[in-house]
């Protein structure tokens, strides 16, 4: 493992070689192109802020080419980065084209340098964090905590107003029944139908509709009106069902009904 075949024709610093070696052997161990770039950047032995992005791009592209030569399977994002770095390289090398839009090569390079520096800073911070004293390893919490018993006490309250309203409610609950029309003087169609159905069986002959009014309803005008209307509607309904026949001699003459015979 000391030497790598393809490296032999070029003189390389030991560190470079080690890096290249590590890359080739363990390409899967890198967490993406940025991680790889960060590793490569270490060979420049400068502050990340002074890094040569151009040199880095060249290193990366070289690495990718070598990896390809070794037929290493490279994930797509490594290749995307390679293409982009090739683009960046050309931008950095060629004089700026005034017609070209978007950020300049320098801006892109600066951002890449920033990303690398930031990633390195986070790695350093992570290391510092993990180097801190940690609970359960360096310092410890109470081993024998005491139970804190939780007592839940419920108190109920009510105001004098609540009390009085409650009393008022119970004493007047009939006033608070659900809203319905007061139907003392009203006979519904359903009521009339029920009544007539039970009576019709006895009426084989023509009978005046008025005689079907329930007892007591004919005296009160309001009740009489409602019952008459209900009975009339009910008789129409029964006629429609073919259960009775209706006749009226002339306009305003009494209406008569009878049970329909079984023809």
């Amino acid at each position, binding site marked *: 493992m000391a030497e790598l075949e393809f490296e032999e024709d070029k003189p390389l610093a030991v560190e470079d070689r080690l890096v290249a070696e590590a890359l080739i052997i363990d390409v899967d161990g890198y967490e993406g192109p940025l991680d790889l770039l960060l590793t490569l950047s270490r060979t420049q032995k400068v502050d990340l802020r002074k890094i040569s992005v151009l040199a880095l791009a060249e290193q990366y592209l070289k690495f990718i080419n070598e990896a390809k030569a070794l037929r290493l399977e490279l994930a797509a994002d490594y290749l995307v980065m390679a293409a982009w770095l090739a683009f960046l390289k050309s931008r950095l090398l060629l004089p700026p084209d005034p017609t070209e839009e978007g950020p300049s090569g320098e801006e892109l390079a600066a951002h890449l340098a920033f990303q690398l520096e930031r990633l390195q800073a986070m790695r350093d911070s992570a290391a510092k964090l993990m180097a801190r004293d940690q609970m359960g390893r360096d310092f*410890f*919490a*109470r*081993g*024998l905590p*005491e*139970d*804190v*018993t*939780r*007592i*839940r*006490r*419920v*108190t*109920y*309250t*009510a*105001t*004098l*107003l*609540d*009390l*009085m*309203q*409650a*009393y*008022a*409610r*119970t*004493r*007047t*609950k*009939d*006033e*608070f029944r659900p809203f319905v029309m*007061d139907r003392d003087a009203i006979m519904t169609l359903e009521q009339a139908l029920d009544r007539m159905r039970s009576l019709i069986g006895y009426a084989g002959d023509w009978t005046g509709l008025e005689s079907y009014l329930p007892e007591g309803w004919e005296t009160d005008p309001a009740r009489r009106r409602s019952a008459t209307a209900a009975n009339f509607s009910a008789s129409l309904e029964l006629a429609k069902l073919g259960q009775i026949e209706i006749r009226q001699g002339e306009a305003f003459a009494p209406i008569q009904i009878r049970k329909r015979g079984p023809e």
Partner: protein
Amino acid sequence: MMADDDKTGIEAPEIEESLFEAPPMAEQERMVEAILFATAEPVTVKEMADRMPHGCDAAEAIVYLRKRYEGRGVSVVRVADAWSIRTAPDLGFLMQKETVETRKLSRAAIETLAIIAYHQPVTRSEIEEIRGVSVSRGTVDQLLEMEWIRFGRRRMTPGRPVTFVVTQGFLDHFGLENARDLPGLKELRSAGLLESRPPLGAMPGMPDAEDEDSEAIGQSEMFEE
């Protein structure tokens, strides 16, 4: 810090024979303190000594530690042949967390309470007649437990049913001098607490409002014990 690490190979039965000095007693006291604090069960002197650097005198360190915690919020106590840090007995009350929850009295409870207040002494079946629904045991129990109602005299009627009356605690809570201070139906109505629509004719089975009031007053034999 652990100057005596490599000493462990040498069997040193006596501290004096030790080649290395044991940590100062103040340091040993700190160690015992930390061990007792962090260990999940009481620790024996031997267990402590086993964990401490060679040459330490855990037993002596405990004597100091125990003294240090005298009169503090926690104390170093002996549990069988082991030691432990425990809450000072007089502070046990801190180990309970009391949460007080205030709830509004249920509708059934407040109606029952209101009827008792206005009609006392009143039997359960009378309450049920007025409310038009049966009164659950829980409701009465709750009011008894809150000490807003108590049992009154038994009614001298068949079955000798027990009656309920309201308590001084009830009067205090509602800021009443006595139950007669409760406003009557008429006042409730004029205060807008009752729907203004007058009942259609007399309410069946209900005494008239005025009657009710005078009756309530006449009835209040209640607070005499």
